[in-house]
């Protein structure tokens, strides 16, 4: 569970870390749009350089991006195979026996790979530099317009932040139950499929029952401290836009405009 790299927050201090989560969320949407629009290599190069600069500012190593990318390699190889079989435009790049591989097949796949790499870099930039709680606040802010149609933005944000808070507690609990079951002779690693399923069940049933118990107690604790769902509350964390946040959004906007223009001029 510790090798999960994608979406992990890296608690260091950097220029990007200090940006308002809302600015980063807006930037994320603009940049993802920017990555999907262009069709020229020059445009990708420019966007790539911009993202690389942001990664450098955020002190995120290339290793982290590569690790996030690894699980997708099999899928991309498969895509390459499908494209080679189905796309028959462009010129013949090379032949395997009597089978011709066309240039467009390869280039289309490369486009997908580059887009994917850029997208992973953008999302990593967001999640690695934004503490989950701030991210929740940012998402709550973005969902606010939906309150007009009675969407409970605040309650959803509260649910997400409590879920985030309890992830380490539940993992600890899982480990404890696993050890308790192991000491009673349950084997999680070996055995037939049916045995494995019953082993997993011996983990899941107590885990759920404990989780429900926790939920009841937590609800009592929240209620006792005056929490009323849907009621007006003040906030301890108040988000504030600074000059740098506006500048960041402006740059992202520029990149998106550039990528739209690149469709026409490059």
């Amino acid at each position: 569970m510790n090798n999960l790299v994608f979406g992990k927050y890296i608690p260091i201090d950097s220029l990007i870390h200090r940006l308002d989560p809302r600015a980063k969320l807006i930037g994320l949407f603009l940049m993802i749009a920017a990555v999907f629009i262009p069709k020229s290599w020059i445009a990708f190069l420019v966007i790539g350089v911009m993202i690389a600069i942001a990664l450098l500012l955020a002190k995120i190593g290339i290793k982290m991006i590569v690790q996030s990318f690894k699980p997708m390699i099999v899928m991309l190889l498969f895509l390459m195979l499908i494209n080679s079989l189905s796309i028959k435009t462009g010129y013949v790049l090379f032949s395997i026996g009597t089978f011709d591989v066309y240039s467009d097949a390869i280039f289309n796949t490369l486009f997908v790979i580059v887009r994917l790499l850029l997208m992973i870099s953008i999302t990593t930039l967001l999640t690695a530099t934004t503490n989950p709680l701030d991210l929740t606040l940012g998402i709550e802010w973005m969902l606010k317009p939906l309150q007009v149609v009675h969407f409970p933005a605040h309650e959803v944000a509260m649910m997400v932040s409590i879920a985030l808070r309890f992830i380490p507690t539940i993992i600890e609990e899982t480990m404890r139950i696993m050890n308790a079951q192991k000491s009673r002779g349950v084997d999680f690693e070996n055995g037939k499929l049916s045995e494995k399923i019953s082993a997993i069940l011996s983990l899941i049933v107590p885990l759920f029952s404990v989780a429900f118990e926790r939920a009841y107690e937590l609800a009592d604790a929240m209620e006792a401290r005056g929490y009323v769902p849907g009621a007006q509350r003040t906030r301890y964390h108040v988000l504030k836009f600074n000059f740098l946040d506006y500048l960041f959004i402006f740059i992202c906007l520029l990149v998106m405009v550039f990528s739209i223009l690149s469709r026409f001029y490059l």
Partner: protein
Amino acid sequence: MSLIEVKDVTFSYNGTRNAVDGVSFDIEKGSYVTIIGHNGSGKSTMAKLIAGLLPIKKGKIVIDGDEVNEENIAMIRNKLGIVFQNPDNQFIGSTVKDDIAFGLENKMVESEKMPAIIEEYANKVGLSAFLNYEPQNLSGGQKQRVAIAGILAMHPSILIFDEATSMLDPKGKKEIKQLMYELSGDDEITIISITHDIEEVLQSDDCIVLNKGKIFMHGKPEAVFKEPEKLREIDLDIPFVEQTREAFGKYKIRLKSDDLKGMVDELCRYRSNH
């Protein structure tokens, strides 16, 4: 008029057996009251009824002149804080300061005023160096202290401890008990502590013994422990002082002191007198 008046309260979870059965008692302002009894005696249910976390169907509870019911609940919760047993399941915020802020946010305290209040109460429970800590990096005792800080920050006049020390290690237990004793010195704060800890009961002003949902004994702790036979009848522990008194009683030596030191003095005098 007493601060808390419990009148003939009966409560049942499933309709067949009463968890609390016709209980009545009064609690005076500024006092430190302990409620003891075996598991299933109804003591935690009693705490939840006072805090308005369970609906009162029979009888009534009046706090500071207001009856605990659906209508008054928000006002009553403002006056009352409750520390639960499990340190993990009452930690709501993602860090110490966020958890202390949770109650303040509900109370509509302005954002600018929060940091100072958080600082003040973290300091009061000795956790000012831990403000940015996440719950998984705190000990059980520290988490309970965070819960207490979060509640104190809301200025309640009544504090309920629902077996708040029972899941802690000896060090954590000692810390929380120490904090409770300090708080009990404040005349503005009334403490109700549900506990298994006999030594803690001796520190309280008043003790209520529950058995099978009914009040079994009620009075000053010294008076309650003067009847060890009755306590033994419902399998409750007896403090060391009373055990000593009883043991000497078998040899027709009657000790009158309520603490060990006094007993030792008495014994020394006893020898010189006989």
